[in-house]
């Protein structure tokens, strides 16, 4: 208690030890540091995608149905799951464990809905013939530039890598939240809040993946329909 009081009077004493300088526990700080490093992983992947896209003829093959429609629904699912998660953390902070569990289960539901929609969409693209290192034949004819340069076959590599890693994060997040929901009575509030940080981060990454991968790949001219 005396160290806390001293810290209030002399902010420099924050760094003398014996107090939490950031006023968060070490586990929460650890999750924040993990989120920072994971942000850099996704930044590097998206930057690699931008690098390839800027130096190639790039196909823009996504029709409204199913790709954009599904991706928008998936965004809605993730945003809603973030809202239910924040309700869960809020209930947990009031000590209402039963309500916290209910909201966390709702979060898992939206997360699983996201995964189901995403896998359906992946399946659709794979059926069309999209592979990590080759395009469907009709994409090549539709998106070859006017001076005869064919579209980059790396579209699938960037698409499956970035959305796949994100999907993996949603999947592990759903498992993580299941464990938290099952053990919510034994866990401290801060542990519930930490699981919320991870889930919101997964949502945050999608806020960049969705416009860069989906919105910028809309088949505006209807090239594939021709």
């Amino acid at each position, binding site marked *: 208690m005396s160290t806390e009081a001293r810290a209030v009077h002399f902010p420099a004493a924050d760094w003398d030890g014996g107090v939490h300088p*950031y006023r968060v526990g070490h586990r929460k700080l650890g999750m924040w540091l993990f989120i920072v490093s994971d942000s*850099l992983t996704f930044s590097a992947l998206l930057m690699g995608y931008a690098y390839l896209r800027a*130096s190639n003829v790039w196909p823009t093959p996504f029709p409204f149905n199913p790709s954009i429609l599904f991706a928008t629904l998936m965004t*809605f699912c993730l945003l809603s799951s973030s809202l239910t998660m924040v309700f869960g953390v*809020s209930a947990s902070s009031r000590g209402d464990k039963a309500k916290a569990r209910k909201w966390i289960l709702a979060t898992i539901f939206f997360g699983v809905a996201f995964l189901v929609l995403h896998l359906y969409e992946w399946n659709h693209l794979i059926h069309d013939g999209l592979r990590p290192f080759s395009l469907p*034949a009709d994409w090549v004819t539709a998106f070859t530039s006017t001076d005869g340069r064919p579209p980059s076959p790396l579209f699938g590599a960037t698409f499956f890598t970035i959305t796949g890693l994100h999907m993996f994060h949603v999947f592990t997040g759903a498992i993580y939240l299941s464990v938290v929901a099952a053990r919510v009575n034994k866990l401290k509030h801060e542990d519930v809040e930490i699981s919320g940080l991870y889930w*919101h981060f997964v949502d945050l990454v999608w806020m960049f993946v969705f416009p860069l991968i989906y919105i910028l790949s809309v088949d*505006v001219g209807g090239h594939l329909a021709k």
Partner: protein
Amino acid sequence: MSAHAEEHFAGSNKLFVSIWIWLVVLTAIEVFLAYKPMSVVLMLTILMGLSIIKAALIVAYFMHLKFERLSLILTIVPMLVVCICLLFVFFPDSFRAAGMRYQFKEPPPVTTTEEH
């Protein structure tokens, strides 16, 4: 440490719902923009602007960073922004590579499936 455990989670449910509505509206604007004919650079600029606003809303309110200590915010955010900006160093090479590709007129790999 009991004082820490009792620490309340700032922000009302009403606030969180209004943040969610903002996020949904910004997403709808992005989808609407997708079908507006404009240059890729302009579209990219607008989309990234909207995405940064959305990310900031999520970090500030849902992830609660707005209500944390300034020292934590200053530890996490600026270095991340600097590191991400450093990745832009690759773009001059990307633009250079654009002129060096397509020197050979080989047909690109195409997926062959039984259906076709």
